[in-house]
């Protein structure tokens, strides 16, 4: 059967690319954005089997041929708008490609020969992710979409294993390991989305051993990956995801350094990326006591955090409550909710500090002794802010503040007074606000 010109042209292009070992050209072929109109009609007429025969006859490399078949099937399903099926087929294609790389790696005669397929692999990983995301979006049944993510996850793990194996004496220029960074970024993305954090550590340590073996303790065989081979954009993504991961494990300082590094490396024009980093970084910085300016919040469209800024600066508990309740779901999804909750104590501290004059007796202010706050007035003031609480609860709150060194003083239970340190600066030590509360 004579195939249509477009289809056979496409297949010849694939064949050329694989024969010449040109990974970039091959990647262009497997890019789903470039949809072939001809394929829909022709394939519908001839059936998919024939297409397989055609591709295997034109394409000399068998494995690449089978990958192409999967890609073609995926394109067909996309045209029919069966997105989930397309995703599955594309993922199968991805798996085949990883197998191809593995086979070539094992081929004794040509070591490092899997290297040329790395750009293709990267592209397929990204495309697969987009497909899965689309399938997730379109599907209403949550069970099914979970399984697609898991399928994607398992294939990614396989690809990751493939790209991390290899001799340590390999020259980095020609190594297939370069694909690992891209894969791990997507893996982390999926795992954070699915919420299973346990496997994250294993893959992270694997990557670190693979890429930076000299930093290990004790240092392992092999050279560190040279800086010029690390793709900049992938490193930014890597820092971003590891930062988020550390946040989920309560490692605040580590998370902050990672995210700051990601932000620093971002090019000036990548506004959307910076926004994504900032969504996690701003709350983190706030818990370190660094309050963002309104200018930044406006620039990156992060006005949801303006409530917190106001709350901290003015000691306004009502605006804090409002801010955290309005966007609670958003904060939960980005993983910053628990951290923001803990900031409430800092807001109470601000509240006391700002309104201290209301709570003292007049003579007390004049004589210049240690400030004594009447707890009853504090209680009333809190009620006005919307936080009505009983006296015991207020005392409990204050004891928490004192224990955390946010307020220096003591409570007198019988007279219902809070006595602070003499100097205002001592009474509300700044030191403790600059460390995340726990």
């Amino acid at each position, binding site marked *: 059967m004579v195939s249509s010109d477009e289809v056979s042209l496409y297949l010849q292009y694939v064949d050329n690319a694989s024969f010449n070992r040109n990974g970039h050209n091959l990647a262009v072929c497997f890019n789903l954005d470039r949809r072939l109109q001809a394929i829909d009609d022709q394939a519908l007429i001839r059936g998919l089997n024939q297409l397989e025969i055609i591709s295997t006859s034109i394409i000399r490399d068998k494995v690449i041929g089978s990958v192409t078949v999967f890609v073609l099937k995926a394109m067909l399903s996309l045209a029919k708008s069966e997105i989930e099926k397309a995703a599955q087929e594309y993922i*199968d294609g991805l*798996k085949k490609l990883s197998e191809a790389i593995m086979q070539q790696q094992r081929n004794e005669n040509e070591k490092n020969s899997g290297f040329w397929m790395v750009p293709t692999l990267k592209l397929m990983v990204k495309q697969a992710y987009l497909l899965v995301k689309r399938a997730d979006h379109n599907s209403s049944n949550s*069970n099914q979409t979970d399984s697609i993510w898991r*399928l994607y996850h*398992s*294939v990614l*793990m*396989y690809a990751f*294993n493939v790209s991390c194996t290899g001799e340590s004496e390999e020259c980095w220029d020609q190594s297939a390991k370069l694909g690992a960074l891209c894969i791990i970024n997507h893996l982390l993305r999926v795992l954070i989305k699915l*919420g299973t*954090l*346990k*496997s994250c550590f*294993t893959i992270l340590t694997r990557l670190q051993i693979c890429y930076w073996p000299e930093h290990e303790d004790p240092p392992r065989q092999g050279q560190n990956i040279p800086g010029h081979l690390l793709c900049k954009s992938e490193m930014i993504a890597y820092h971003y995801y590891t930062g988020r991961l550390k946040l*989920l*494990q*309560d490692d605040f300082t580590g998370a902050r350094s990672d995210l700051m590094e990601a932000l620093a490396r971002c090019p000036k024009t990548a506004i959307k990326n910076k926004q994504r980093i900032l969504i996690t970084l701003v709350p983190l910085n706030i818990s370190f006591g660094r309050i963002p300016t309104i200018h930044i919040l406006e620039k990156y469209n992060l006005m949801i955090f303006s409530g917190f800024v106001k709350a901290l600066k003015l000691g306004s508990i009502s605006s804090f409550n409002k801010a955290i309740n309005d966007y609670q*779901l958003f904060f*939960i*999804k980005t*993983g910053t*909710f*628990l951290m923001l*909750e*803990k900031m*409430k*104590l800092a807001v109470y501290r601000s509240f006391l500090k700002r309104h201290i004059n209301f709570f003292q007796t007049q003579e007390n202010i004049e004589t210049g002794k240690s400030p004594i706050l009447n707890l009853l007035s504090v209680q009333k003031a809190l009620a006005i802010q919307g936080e009505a609480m009983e006296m*015991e*609860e207020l*005392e*409990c*709150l*204050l*004891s*928490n503040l*004192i*224990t955390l060194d946010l307020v220096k003083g*003591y*409570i*007198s*239970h*019988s007279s219902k007074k809070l*006595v602070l340190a003499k100097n205002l600066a001592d009474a509300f030590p700044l030191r403790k606000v600059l460390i995340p509360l726990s």
Partner: protein
Amino acid sequence: PPPILNSQSNVSIKKYEVQSHTQGKGNEIQDMDVEMEMNDAGNSSQIIENVHGTISVANFQNINKVKGQLESKKSDNVLSSKLQTRKSRFSSSPGPINQPSNVNHSNSFNQNKSIIMSKTENNGRNFNLDKSNFSSNEHLQREQRAKRFQINRVNDPSIQAKKSCTANLNGLINSPPSEVDSKGGGALGNLTVKGTSTELEKEYFRLTSAPDPSTVRPSLVLKKALERLISIWNRRGTTDPETNLPVKVDYLYMCSQLKAIRQDLTVQRLKGPLAVSVYEGHARIALEEDDLNEYNQCQTQLKELYASGENGAVVEFTAYRILYHVVLHMHQSYVGGNADILIILSEIPNDQKNDQCIIHALRVREAVASFNYYSFFKLLKEAPNLGKKIMNSMVSFMRLKGLERIIKAYRPTVPTSFVIEVLSLEDSNELGTDRTGITYLNSCGLVLSEDGSQVKCKESIIKDSVIMAGNSLL
């Protein structure tokens, strides 16, 4: 050729306990339970063939149980050993002949057999090889096994399949599952037993091979069994009319019976409303007896059942789940606790958010996170359903934190009665007989004034109290 241990395996097999049942005829029949430690990476698992060459059905429950054990990081030893001793007491009833075999755990890639473990066989146990005593089934199986050690078996397809299986276990596990090899005696996908037994009472035994349908009970029988167990459980606390003593129900007996029901459900793949009632019932009973481990297993199953659309006391158990995760998060060694709580929080559907139980559970979470001991103990008193039992695990922690804060914040003294009230120490029953709140406070290192009415805050140093509240199977 000697049996080959799969060198790629990361699983170590630990012999757990061996018992011998003596029967009237003088046969010694071995019953060995072998527990498997799964590698924490969770990636590798071993496919074990039992001695007679048949693939056994996966004991789903046991896998969940093992996973549940790992996840909750609590040892099950106490409970299991108690169950074992229970088993031996009841061994006089002629049950199914337990073949001297190894426990079979298979994962979803149950393609083929691989050989393992002649270790446990030759530890000096007596095997009575009097063939006349074996059933014909067993005879056949023994013959099959004997065939394995013949020399010219290289071309046997099952062995070929075996080899390819052991080739790249990791790769198989990481790759999407391929077709099931039906030659291997049926994998998980094919086995569903239809039960025929009508026994209401059944002890729990770990499955060592495919269960005999005559020992598995169909759903109607299971329903009656469940009702019977629940009525037994409800009788406790009442007075027995004959002896005028309060009725005591043995929790271990209940646990074993319920696990047997769960096993029957799993083996027959019954996942309907009956399964929900069983798991809910078991979870409640476990909570009443402070068995958080068992509760966690039921909770995991319930979560999946509810997710697949079953009805039940969803709100009640979601509240329990939240509380349970607060408990988990409290123990510092639990890694990744943050993500779990966040997921649970994000998954609560809107219509449930206004329910009392959920609101209560969320408030508890908030209180524990911000060390708000006052709210915590108030919430403890108002806990709905059985939430109090879960919260009991947090009590000593919150008390300690509360005492730390009180000592730091108040000067010069704070009334003892206030401390006792705030930390909910009035109920001396909690702390065991003859102990009052004051004793507890003293054991924590608080220094009281002469008349005992005030706590001297400056002189007190808080340390962990030696008095344990309550008694649990943890």
